Structures are given as structure tokens and as C-alpha cells.
């Protein structure tokens, strides 16, 4: 390596390190209490154990791991819907947005698609009605949905259409940090590719960060900068996509990658 290249590399590392922190999850454990309002040791079941990682501005962090391991629980904990029992979660931005795994949780079943996407803008209060309409239609186009569904209720959409409406409703808020829980699982591969491109474009426009939860390891490979691997509620491995995919250290990660393809 020439001196120049070394300088360049050092500079790149500096830049990567210098991007400001968006989220710090520091040695967090937590889970659920069953059976009523009493929180006792007996009815507590810990799901997440000693989770530790951070996300920087502009970074796309993948989260993979077996079904039932605690990925959605971690997402809920970052949002404050589940409280950590130990450790702490520090946000350096406003409350993050989320696209839930079950799109019905993101959308109000009583309201139309147009209402659901427009609502955050209305609350925001900065735009007048025509400007809001324009923004809603623009966002609809970006998630590849036809305008004919504007009047529809969530129950009157296909699964993949519902998923894209939740993505649109989250992106229109121009968040600084967005959690996406299996956001493209109900999309055919051509629309999926377009949505992944959209997520990359928006990342560039807004310099936002994502936590991207997915069972599709190829999608994670294509989209993410870094990845967290979870097993039985613990992070067993984390690193850049290249590190983890090309040189997995843990047996579990190796098996996971081998089973994919």
C-alpha cells in the first residue's frame, strides 16, 4: 500500500467514525411480563440479553436471525413500547419512525390510504392542503402505487399494497431514523428492487439511518452497510456486510448463510 493509499484509508476510517451517533443501545436486557399488571420475577420472561450496538447517521444496519429470537422485540424497545430491564437506550434524534412487520399495526383500519399518508403532514402543520395533496401523490408514485387506491381502506388492499402504504406513511415524515421490520416480504421481486432503490435514494436525500430487519439475507446484502446477527436473544456477531458475509466468525452465522442462497 502506498503512503497515499494509507492516508486515504485512514481518512475514510475517520469519516466513518465521525458520522454522528443516532442510536446507542448499551448492554440492554428485557422481555415481557405475563399475567396481569403485577410485575414479579415469576411472570417475567427475558427475551433480549445484553444487546450492545450503535447506529450512526446515514448508516443502514441490518438485523437478521431466527424466527422468535427477539428482533421485533428489540424494535419495540427502541421505540419505547417495551421497557429495558437493564442497560440503556440513548436516542440522538427525535423518536424514530417504524414500519411494523404486520402492516395493520402501522395503519388505522378506519381511514383511507390518503388519510393515513397525509395525516403526519397535517399534524406537522407546515404545508397547506394543495401542497399536502401533492406530496401524498408524489410519495405514492415513489412506492409504485396507483392513485386509484387513495380512497381505499387498508382492508381493501393487497398485502404488498398495504406494506407499501406503511412505508409511504413513514417516509413522508422525513424521519432521521427509521426502523423497518420485514418491509419488503410481501412484494414481488421487481417491486422489491424498486423499493430498495427508493430506500437508498431517500437515505441520500435525508441522510437518515435505518435499522432493517429481514429474513432475506440477499436483500440485506444488497441494502445494508453493517449487520447484526441475533440468536436466542443475543447478538452473536456484528460487523460490516463484507466482514460478516465473507468471513463469518460464528458457527450460527455460517449455518445461516449456508442455508440461504
Amino acid at each position, binding site marked *: 500500500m502506498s503512503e497515499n493509499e494509507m492516508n486515504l484509508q485512514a481518512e475514510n476510517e475517520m469519516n466513518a467514525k465521525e458520522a454522528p451517533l443516532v442510536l446507542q443501545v448499551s448492554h440492554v436486557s428485557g422481555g415481557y411480563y405475563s399475567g396481569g399488571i403485577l410485575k414479579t420475577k415469576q411472570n417475567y420472561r427475558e427475551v433480549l440479553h445484553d444487546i450492545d450496538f450503535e447506529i450512526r447517521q446515514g448508516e443502514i444496519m441490518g438485523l437478521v436471525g431466527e424466527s422468535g429470537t427477539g428482533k421485533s422485540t428489540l424494535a419495540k424497545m427502541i421505540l419505547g413500547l417495551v421497557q429495558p430491564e437493564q442497560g440503556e437506550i440513548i436516542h440522538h434524534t427525535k423518536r424514530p419512525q417504524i414500519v411494523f412487520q*404486520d402492516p395493520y399495526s402501522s395503519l388505522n383500519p378506519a381511514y383511507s390510504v390518503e388519510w393515513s399518508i397525509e395525516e403526519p403532514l397535517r399534524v406537522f402543520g407546515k404545508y397547506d392542503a394543495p401542497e399536502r395533496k401533492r406530496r401524498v401523490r408524489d410519495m405514492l408514485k415513489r412506492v409504485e402505487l396507483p392513485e386509484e387506491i387513495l380512497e*381505499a381502506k387498508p382492508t381493501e388492499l393487497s398485502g404488498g399494497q398495504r406494506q407499501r402504504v406503511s412505508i409511504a406513511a413513514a417516509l413522508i415524515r422525513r424521519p432521521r431514523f427509521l426502523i423497518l421490520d420485514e418491509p419488503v416480504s410481501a412484494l414481488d421481486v421487481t417491486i422489491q428492487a424498486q423499493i430498495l432503490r427508493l430506500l437508498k435514494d431517500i437515505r441520500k436525500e435525508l441522510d437518515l439511518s435505518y435499522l432493517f430487519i429481514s429474513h432475506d439475507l440477499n436483500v440485506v446484502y444488497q441494502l445494508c452497510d453493517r449487520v447484526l446477527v441475533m440468536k436466542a436473544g443475543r447478538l452473536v456477531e456484528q460487523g460490516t456486510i463484507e466482514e460478516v458475509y465473507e468471513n463469518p466468525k460464528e458457527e450460527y452465522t455460517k449455518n445461516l448463510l449456508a*442455508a440461504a442462497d
Partner: protein
Amino acid sequence: MLEIRDLHVKFHTREREAVAGISLTIRDGEILGLVGESGSGKTVTAMSIAGLLPRKQCRLSGEILLGGKDLLHADRSELRKIHGNEIGVVFQEPMSSMDPLMKVGLQVGETLRIHTDNSPEERKKLVLAALDDVELPDPEAIYNKYPHELSGGMQQRAMIAAAIASRPKLLLLDEPTTALDVTVQAQILELLKKLNRTHGISMMFISHNLNVVRKLCKRVAIMQRGELVETGDTEKIFTDPQHPYTQRLISAIPTRTRKEPV
């Protein structure tokens, strides 16, 4: 097994037909794949077979023949028998079709309760076996949980357990493995193959995961905008797609080598 003839479904609130004249057969003992664009009418087709479309919101025409009977025009009591007994359905979004206030075990046992005269003890045993079949850890504990206490993939497996517990003749599976990791997914696919082989259950398997479809289904049908654009032998269609949409679809399968520059 099942024959769909010129099925049309038009919702009153929409201009275009959701299903615009499709004809399709599911042969005895086969697993037919149904893939295609999001919003192209796959779920609506499955719902038409299952008799679960909101009849007041749409206009239906054509024929759906199961063992010689036309499901579209049969009367209600006849339909109810067929649907619980002969057709099992796994819905695309498990949470939306589960009763949030009913324990998982009881829901999985619902069709058994309605359509068999098993005692409650026998039923529980069958349900626990079905929960075990779908690779859920600790079936006894899952039995007593409420749906929201399960992860997405666990709900999906509970739905599959509910559909297979009564051993229907035809299984309609709408995106049944989207929330499953590759390992569990592989186990579920093995289970489906086994049910297909040993019990002769025919299946319609709707999925966006083309690699899975290729592994599971001998025959595949491709939908776009309410129409069938291509139907045939899976291997043949994957290696030599004829329709432009199928060609686009197959070239867009995500791989690990095509990392686009950001």
C-alpha cells in the same frame, strides 16, 4: 381436483377487475405455484376458492369446480361444509385472521371442533401434534398463549398448524413463509412436501419467493394485472420464460453477487 373457469372478480370501488378472466386447474396431488406482481389478484383468486370474498363489495362470475361442484354457485350450508372440511387456508397476514382474544391452541383446534366429533382431549392431542409438526418450540406453552404473544413467524406457523390439523384435501397457502428464517422455512417446506406425498393433499402455493417456488412446485402460474400470463412446468419457465413480465421477474431475483453501487 379443482378447476377454475373464466373467473372474474370486480370490486365496486375499483375501475379495473381484480381478476380478469383466469382459467386454471390444480391437479390431484399436485403443488401448484402462483406467483406474480403485488396486487395482481393472487389473494383474491385464493379467496374466491375459499368462499371468503366480501360478496357485497364485488361482482363474481365464472365457475370454480371442486369434485364436480361449483363453489361459486353452491348454497351456503353446502359451502360451509366444503370449506372447513375439504379446503384449508393459510392467510397472508396471520394477525389479521386470528382472533386476538382466543388462545392459540383453541384457534388451531377450531376446524376440528366444528368438523369432527373428536373429544376435547383428542382434539388437544391433535393440536399439540400439529404445533409440533410446524416446528414451534414448546407446543404446550404456545397452546396457552394469545396471538400477540407470538412473533410474526410463530403466528405464521400457528396458522399453518390450524390449516393442516384437520387434513383437508386442498390447502391454499398464501405467502405462508414470509416471516420465517431460512432454516425454519426449509423445515416447513419439507413438512408440506410430506403432507403432499403421504396424505395426497393438493396445494396452491402463493409466494414472492421464487427460489422456494422452484424447489416446491412442479407447475407454476404467473399473474400480472388480474390475468394469467404464463402457466407451465416450473423448471421450463424458470430457465426459458416466454412472457416479458416473467422474464423481468426472473431477472430480478435478488442474489448475493449483484451489489449495486449506492
